[in-house]
């Protein structure tokens, strides 16, 4: 896999339901699963697949990304043989919506691609929750001498498919057409990861420069016969976080042991920035079940069907259920929370009761005091 450059795109500008969490950060660094950021999955999948040169394209809210990734040491990307680059990105907005895979971001980093000796580029969005090994897809890519190999999945009720999602048509194994959701003819949807020959990518960038169309999906649609496009099927768990609802669902999916097992208990570790926390302390009055808990927590109350991030402090007599508590929150005494999502550093005062609903949880911004 030495011949591959990994590129993680920026996808900001999505659904506004997450805006309270994205004031200070990009979607790629949205906290997830008790200790991770969303980008950890894609980045770890690339590293675990043996990709040694990875570029992460940032958007305008850089600081949380730079802070999180640092030198890439936690992902073994701070070595003479392996490297992480944080690249500049551009807005994906256009009149009437978003560009799904925006080649403009790659054109802006053309020098990075050209200077790198890799001949193939694996490109992924940063907001996929999955454990995926690119090796099999890369084999398909090489064996078929593909220009582009698209990762797809068969319709999955868990995956929050939207109108602008792409479906693939196949002629034998070769992709013969792509359609948006409403006009689809198959049930194979594109899982927002693909492998592309660098030479083909550079040619497409040249073409885009002339036409002014930077939407890769439109380019593929227009050139599907000229390009050799193949598909590689993803058979495991995958979720895309692009709204509050998909954030809640994919977070709560982790409480299903089989999913937890697939994502975290295999040989491949999902890496993240390491913190020096003490082990979590469960006090005399604690009762925590069906939950995920990060390190550094001090828990006195009852927690069920919830996710507590690192360094949560929860006092006596409190009850948390169906909620997500991000890092360094403090829950006072006799607090009752149901369907609440709170960003980092939120403080809930004693005797507070907050009841959200399954499809509309109560949301608190970073640093709220309630």
């Amino acid at each position, binding site marked *: 896999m030495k011949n591959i450059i990994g590129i993680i795109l920026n996808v900001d500008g999505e659904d506004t339901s997450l805006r309270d969490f994205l004031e200070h950060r990009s979607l790629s660094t949205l906290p997830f*699963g*008790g*200790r991770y950021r969303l980008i950890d999955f894609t980045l770890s999948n690339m590293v675990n697949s043996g990709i040694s040169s990875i570029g992460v394209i940032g958007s305008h809210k850089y600081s949380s990304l730079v802070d999180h990734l640092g030198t890439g040491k*936690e992902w073994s990307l701070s070595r003479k043989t392996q490297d992480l680059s944080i690249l500049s990105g551009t807005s994906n907005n256009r009149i009437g919506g978003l560009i799904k895979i925006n080649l403009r971001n790659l054109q802006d980093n053309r020098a990075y691609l050209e200077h790198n000796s890799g001949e193939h580029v694996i490109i992924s969005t940063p907001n996929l929750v999955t454990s995926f090994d690119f090796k099999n897809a890369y084999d398909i890519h090489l064996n078929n001498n593909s220009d582009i190999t698209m990762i797809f999945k068969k319709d999955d009720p868990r995956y929050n498919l939207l109108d602008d999602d792409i479906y693939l048509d196949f002629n034998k194994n070769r992709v013969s057409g792509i359609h948006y959701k409403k006009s689809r003819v198959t049930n194979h949807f594109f899982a927002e990861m693909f492998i592309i020959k660098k030479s083909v990518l550079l040619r497409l960038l040249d073409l885009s420069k002339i036409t002014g169309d930077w939407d890769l999906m439109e380019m593929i649609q227009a050139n599907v016969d000229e390009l050799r496009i193949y598909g590689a099927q993803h058979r495991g768990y995958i979720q895309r976080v692009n709204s509050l609802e998909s954030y809640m669902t994919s977070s709560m999916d982790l409480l299903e*042991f089989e999913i*937890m097992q697939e*994502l*975290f*208990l295999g040989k491949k*570790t*999902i*890496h*993240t920035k*390491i*913190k*020096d926390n*003490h*082990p*979590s*302390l*469960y*006090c*005399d*009055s*604690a*009762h*925590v*079940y*069906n*939950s*995920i*808990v*990060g*390190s*550094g927590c*001090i828990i006195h109350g009852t927690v069920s069907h919830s996710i507590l991030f690192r360094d949560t402090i929860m006092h006596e007599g409190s009850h948390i259920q169906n909620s997500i508590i991000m890092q360094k929150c403090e829950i006072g005494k006799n607090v009752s929370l149901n369907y609440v999502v709170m960003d980092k550093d939120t403080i809930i005062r004693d005797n507070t009761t907050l009841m959200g609903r399954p499809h509309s949880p109560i949301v608190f911004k970073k640093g709220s005091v309630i």
Partner: protein
Amino acid sequence: MNTECVAMLLAGGQGSRLGSLTFNNAKPAVLFGGKYRIIDFPLSNCMNSDIDVVGVLTQYRPYILNNYIGDGSAWALDQVTGGAHILPPYMGQKGGRWYSGTADAIFQNIDFIDRFDPEYVLILSGDHIYKMDYSKMIAFHKKQEADLSIAVMDVLMEDAHRFGIVNTDDENRITEFQEKPEEPKSNKASMGIYVFTWEVLKKALLEDAGNRESEHDFGLNVIPMLHENNKRIFAFPYSGYWRDVGTIQSYYDANMDLLDSTCDFDLTDRSFRVFSNNMSRHPQYLGPEAKITNSLICDGCIIFGEIEHSIISHDVIIKKNTVLKNAIVHTGAIIEDGAILENCIIGSRARIKGDTRFIASETDLMPIIHVINS
């Protein structure tokens, strides 16, 4: 290169009284408090004291220890001009030999210390649990214009016979040493932490090395020799939590102190943190029937059972219908469905079968079940 103070951490001991916990692991690398290893405490103290050159003297079963220390970055010791240096015994032109005592280990590394041209050398050991700002002790040493300062703490008079006891004058100058005395004259116990003026120590080590009678031990030989030579030896008074974890019982008790909210040793205190070489592990997963009280749990654990007053290291799997009480479970152990365990230490990667009913009494020493490695 000039560094005011170089720390030398004696980490080569076997720790045979820890039984199978040190079967193939050096004592300083034994797990403590779930995620920590004993050596985290002196190394974190160094970090919190702005000491950035630390020589770690290794000898017995060093692999896990060496691997754990790595480049020292976990304790901010990955700096360009100093950092963590692992110092095993080595071959020279006239052959080589093992470290034959604590003083000999330093003697064999005189060249290492001289490279940094320090004023002072701090001698630490890798078997104590405590938090201490060594910079205060070095400041004390300078103020007293001492040749040697020894950290001491008050112990109960009835325990004094188990320690090296010092007697001092009104100005904290040590007037007498008693090694594990039957009739202690004071309750000031040496903590095995020394600040030497390097010039004085170097001379003493060279002299001690030439003495065929000597066991080349600081407590038995070098310090009494300095005392005889009327060197200025002072006692630096320390008060606070300090435990020697050299035996299974003391190791177990010190672990359990972490669960005692009245104990003045607090791992959650952020003003003086204990750092460790962290593993990247998934968060703790607690199943629908899990019940955990008064316990410390580390990342990477999967828990379906009931845990009370216990310390669980990372990557432990505890299945359904299990009951753990007053237990210490080391990394990667698997407790199968139905096992009941009380007052025991479960070794790393041990697999406890579901029909196990193991209930030791609290006063009895808890046996260790199946230690493979850590």
